[in-house]
């Protein structure tokens, strides 16, 4: 504080004391009148709490704390604190406040039955998220909480060890260190993550670089490894791990493995209102970290309201296991929006994926994929698939209410791919009430006899078949609902399964859909609600039967509409907690 500043403060204090003194002059009565406290000061303690201190007077009974929000709010009591018998300093902590919000406080003294006039006001603004900095550079081996008031930076490959629970407060921001290539958070087998944000305070994992400079691959991503069954025998190395060898060294990228566990109900924690932005790490071709990588997670795990923004590889990738997951949104995905394999059994509802461009990843973080797809589902592939594509359990997810929009141009995808839905290597699954648009190759590639066998080796799968596609709406998919028939390519009956190939544009289906090639300004450039009169507002499979009904249980509801968003004003489930940025 400068000298002038000190002088001003001193003068203000003298004037304040004078004003209080004047007030007491006006009081009357025989008992000592209740006098307002002096020296009220308020300091922000955290994003949600404020500390008040003031001087009490001997003989006072208690002090009522009153608070008003902002400059113009009205005061209301928030609590009371007993007075110390001898007077002296009193402290009070006000909690459950709003983040980064200004408050005014004053105190009313109680002396016997008398109340004083209000003390002088103190104003304070609660702290914003992440006001403290904390770097995490080694493995987390005991339970730990990450607080919203702290901005954490992941420096290295941070593993949360077996037995530990990582709790993350709503609103917490976690930065992946750009300077430590591949920095990632991995929840290991037996560990849990409890990352439950709120629409107002989502938990954000993002690049440590400033907005405008961020790129896919700035940091690694979020990986969860569990102990649920998959369909490969033996242990499986998590792709992208092991670049620092096999020896376990905290913070290093040692080899991480999962195996065909036997705990289908395994619990790796809860993710809710979580964003992962500009992630990805591709040390080798087909060896990539995604925004969200889920390896063999059991049904005790629960995830909803997750956003992936501009990853180097997939947005959401599932290897085996199975749990309930809903409300997923994937922006500008370099490879697959939703990638499932190795016996993934989960139930999934309300999925949005949209690309408008293929972003250039961070220099040196690896290469993006050559086969970008909306859904890329595999049965079993590689060593340990003892029955090849017939290895069990089959990959049978229930995927309901999905909206997947490619960027439409072949230049947006690599040399191959560009299918809206790639179903191959013996995958099954129930895919209902979807919208697939702007994929440059075709709508669906149904590859391999083994995959067709899941449908019962017929174009009209029965209600008990392991592979069913029902009520999916296609637009701008190169005029091909299915990749053309060949020895290895199959088709389903579009009429019997309500698979509609529209001649209309994708943009006409939705309230606001950015054109390909123009950069959307922000999240408000997107509104996935069906446009008025849109064919996707209706035409949904509104009653499940057979295997789909059994699988859906009470978790997945049948809808009369197709796509991830219900018609009408109330359906915008992405609003408020998501963000959009290309860099």
């Amino acid at each position, binding site marked *: 504080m400068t000298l002038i500043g000190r002088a001003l403060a001193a003068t203000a204090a003298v004037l304040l004391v004078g004003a209080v003194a004047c007030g007491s002059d006006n009081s009357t009565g025989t008992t000592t009148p209740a006098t307002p406290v002096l020296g009220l000061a308020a300091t922000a303690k955290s994003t949600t709490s404020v500390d008040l201190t003031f001087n009490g007077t001997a003989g006072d009974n208690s002090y009522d704390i009153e608070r008003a929000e902002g400059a113009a709010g009205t005061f209301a009591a928030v609590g009371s604190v007993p007075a110390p018998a001898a007077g002296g300093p009193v402290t009070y902590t006000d909690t459950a406040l709003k983040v980064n919000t200004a408050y005014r406080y004053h105190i009313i003294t109680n002396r016997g039955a008398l109340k004083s006039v209000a003390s002088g006001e103190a104003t304070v603004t609660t702290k914003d998220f992440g006001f403290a900095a904390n770097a995490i550079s080694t493995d987390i081996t005991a339970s730990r909480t990450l607080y919203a008031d702290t901005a954490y930076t992941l420096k290295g490959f941070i593993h949360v060890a077996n037995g530990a629970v990582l709790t993350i407060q709503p609103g917490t921001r976690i930065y992946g260190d750009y300077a430590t290539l591949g920095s990632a958070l991995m929840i290991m087998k037996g560990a849990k993550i409890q990352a439950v944000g709120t629409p107002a305070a989502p938990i954000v994992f993002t690049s440590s670089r400033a907005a405008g400079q961020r790129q896919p691959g700035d940091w690694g991503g979020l990986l969860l490894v569990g102990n649920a069954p998959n369909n490969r025998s033996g242990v499986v190395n998590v792709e992208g791990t092991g670049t620092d060898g096999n020896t376990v060294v905290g913070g290093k990228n040692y080899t991480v493995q999962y195996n065909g566990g036997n705990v289908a109900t395994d619990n790796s924690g809860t993710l809710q209102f979580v964003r992962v932005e500009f992630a990805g790490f591709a040390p080798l071709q087909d060896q990539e970290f995604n925004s969200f990588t889920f390896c063999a997670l059991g049904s005790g795990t629960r995830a909803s309201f997750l956003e992936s923004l501009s990853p180097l590889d997939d947005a959401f990738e599932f290897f085996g296991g199975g749990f309930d997951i809903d409300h997923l949104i994937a922006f500008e995905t370099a490879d697959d929006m939703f990638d499932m394999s190795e016996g993934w059994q989960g139930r999934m509802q309300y999925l949005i994926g949209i690309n408008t461009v293929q972003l250039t990843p961070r220099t040196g973080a690896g290469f993006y994929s050559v086969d970008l797809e909306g859904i890329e589902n595999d049965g*079993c592939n590689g060593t340990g698939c003892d029955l090849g594509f017939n290895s069990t359990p089959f990959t049978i997810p229930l995927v309901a209410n999905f909206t997947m929009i490619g960027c439409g141009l072949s230049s947006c995808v690599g040399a191959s791919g560009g299918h809206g839905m790639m179903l191959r290597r013996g995958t099954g699954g129930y895919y209902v009430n979807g919208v697939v648009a702007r994929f440059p190759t075709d709508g669906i590639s149904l590859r391999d006899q083994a995959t067709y066998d899941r449908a019962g080796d017929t174009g009209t799968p029965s209600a008990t078949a392991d592979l069913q596609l029902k009520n999916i709406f296609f637009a701008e998919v190169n005029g091909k609902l299915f990749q053309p028939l060949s020895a290895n390519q199959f088709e389903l009956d579009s009429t019997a399964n309500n698979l509609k190939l529209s001649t209309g544009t994708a943009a006409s289906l939705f309230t606001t859909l950015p054109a390909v090639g123009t950069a959307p300004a922000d999240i408000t450039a997107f509104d996935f609600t069906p446009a008025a009169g849109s064919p996707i507002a209706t035409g949904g499979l509104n009653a499940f039967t057979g295997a789909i009904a059994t699988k859906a249980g009470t978790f997945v509801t049948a809808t009369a509409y197709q796509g991830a968003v219900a018609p009408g004003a109330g359906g915008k489930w992405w609003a408020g907690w998501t963000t959009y940025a290309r860099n």
Partner: protein
Amino acid sequence: MLTRPSLIRRLVFLFLVALPCALSAQREAQQGTGRIVGRIIDAASGAGIADAGVQVVGTTTGGRSGVDGRFSLGNVPAGTVTIQVRRIGFATKQVTGLVLEAGKSLEQNVSLTAATVQLEAQVTTASVERGSVSGALDAQRNAAGVVSAVTAEQISKSPDGDAAQAVKRVSGVTVQDGKYVFVRGLGERYTTSSLNGARVPSPEPEKRVVPLDMFPAGLVQTITTTKTFTPDQQGDFSGASVDIRTKEFPATRSTAFQFGSGYSPGATGSRLLSATSVGGESFAMVNHNRDLPAVVRNLGNFQNINLNQGDMNYLVSTFRNSWTPKVATGSPLLNGSMSVGGNDPVLFGHRIGYLFSGTISSGTDLKDGQVRALADRGTTKGETVEIDRFTGSTTSQSVLWGGLANLSTLINEGSRISFNGLFNRSADNDARVEAGSFAADAIPVQITRMEYTERGVYSGQLTGEHQIGSMHRFDWSATASGVRRYEPDQSAFVQSIDQDPAGGPAVLHWYAGGSGSAVRTYSDLNENSHEYSAKYTLTVGRAGSPTVIKFGGLSRHTSRDAQSFSYAISARNLTPEQLALPLEEIFDGRFSTPSSSYFNVGPLSQGGSYAARDRLTAGFVMADVPIFSALHAIGGVRYESDNLEVDAFSTLGSPVNTVKKWNDVLPSLGLNLQLTSRQQLRLSGSRTLARPEYRELSPIISRDVVGGENVQGDENLSRTRVTNMDARWEFYPGAGEILSVALFAKKFDLPIERVYGSGSGGTAFVFYTNAESADNYGVELELRKHLGALGSLFEPLTLFSNVTLMESQIHLFDSTKASATNLSRRMVGQAPYVLNTGLTYASRSGGLSATALFNRIGERIVAAGGTPLPDVVEKSRNVLDLSLRQAIRSGVLLRMDLKNLLDSPYEVRQGTVEREFYRSGRIVGLGLQWQH
């Protein structure tokens, strides 16, 4: 590092030394007498025998052999003479019928047999003795262990052009990829190679093995394969140790030239897609044209820098714009060699033996009808389904040249100092074009690669042998050697094969997205080694069966630096018409103008580099003790202390440093029992070890560029300990004849195996693991017999054959992370049998000789299968070679070789899937050899 200046220096040195030697030649010119020179050698080992008395029978002319076994008798009366050779411990031998012309020198080598039982003199004729010297070398009567050898004489009768081809004639030896020696089915991990007794550094990035095809056969005197361990050998062999001895100087001055040419149907004279070349590649001396662009090198891992599109365009333009092979005519196979040697110049009063030899061969060969595919899992367990099948061909332009300088002098009767220098260079410039389709994409593609590989070896060795009296002997040697494998600027790119409309003409489009679409790789590996060894031998006790005690030590320091950088170029937004352009046009700058926004370039981590340092210190003591006159015990112990350090740098990981220290005591005991004068029984047991290869300890992940598997080392590997048991019965029916039966059994504790693991998403993973244990056992039969006994018609024929039958069993730990199909199976690389057989015809006059050689190796595992796939096996293959040698006139020999007459395919299968298939083609060769 083998740089070009150092090569030139070596060549200049070679010639500077050669000239004065040749010029100062002296000749015997005394009237009425001549000179007999030669070498007395141990029939068992081929080693020179010092201090043997050589006498011209009926005269007083005589002398003693020097420390290397060489002798020279001057003033021998011309005419037909007989010489007699005596040495304590060996049977005395008389060689009759030497025809000595006045004023001429005659060379006669004599082999002596250890006289354990039989002490009466042997008498042979000069011509028989000449034939049997090489036979004797092959007689494998080494006092201490089981040894097999191939000699220069045998090599000259075969079409074998390099040491790898020659060594496969040894019993129990298989040669993989024409380079790597497997002995008794044990991989290169268990076989060590040395040159003149000193370990050769390895030019292989994945292994420590020495590819023997680097050594031209023309420089080789013998290749000895030792199969049992004695403490004076390095402890890290279990299968065998292969020692290549370079040629020794001849006793009299001689010059030899050889020239040959070969024709390979399908390759020679055909129009072939061949790799482009720049600089001195035809002589394996590429210049800087293939260097990694400096600006790219400076970018390292491309980390912490943000390249804009203009930067990318510039970087792409710095790569050499050569991608597509050109059509060229396949050149014939040419080879030539020259050597000059003698023992005549005198420097400071000492006679200098010298040999300078140079050889070169070159040619184009074609692997046609090449098929490779991967096996995927079928939907019933163990079923295999073919995927990723590619067919194509590889054109290889190769050159191999080298030279040696061998100088030796006797300081006094008992001391010899010699210098051995060797240098060679080879290059293979391959163009491989293949078409097929990847299962993941189901799009037909063509892959085009050009791969230039240059290898070089140098070795300089100074050795001393000092015999002090008959009791003491001291040997020492100091060797510096280095090797380089240089693979600058290899290219690979992928094009999709499109037919639009379906059935229309195929159009190639560059498959421009992703990391495998266009790749340049730069690899360089240098390994240098210094080795110092000394050995003292004490011979005491009764003459005829002395007790021999040896002790010595060795210090070796090896350092290796292996680097590999790989870059991928991809592109976006190119139209199909643009993608249909040849790559040279796509990269000619039209798409990298300042406003262009097409290219992306970045490093691939198939690279990864590592450096290794290995210090070995060893000491041994051993004794050869006669228990009875017919029974020898050879026993001793070796101590080895090894300190190995590997620093690995993965492209996208942090450096990993691995330090390993191993101290081992390796005992061995052998018993040699002389059953009769012609029969011997040997028993031996020993403990040896195998250390992990450097690359295996480096936990970086590398990957073949297109469609390859990930390979990762493990810094936690242990070394393998091996217990060896051998028994061998030998019968020597006559000179140059042998019948032997050997049994062997080995037990491996924690052997290292290359196995499959699985990665999420289906990526195959290959890594190294210590298996629990392995057993390897088998029987070897060897026969060499003159067929004269069958009648005079068969007199000129000699039949030889060796057969090895073996079995092995390896057990992996259940808890291993390997996803191997069989936790218990044969060891990788082990064949159930190896058969070598041949028939030699030598006309009585010696003018015509012919050899037919046949080789067959049983089906063996080349890679263990990942569950549930069966193991990958290489099928048996019949190889028949024919050679004819006709003396046209004195000193001039006509050679004709028919190689690979059956042209059996090379075939690797996994279940029902043909993983690899090609034919390498027949070769017809003609040559002339002139010796003076």
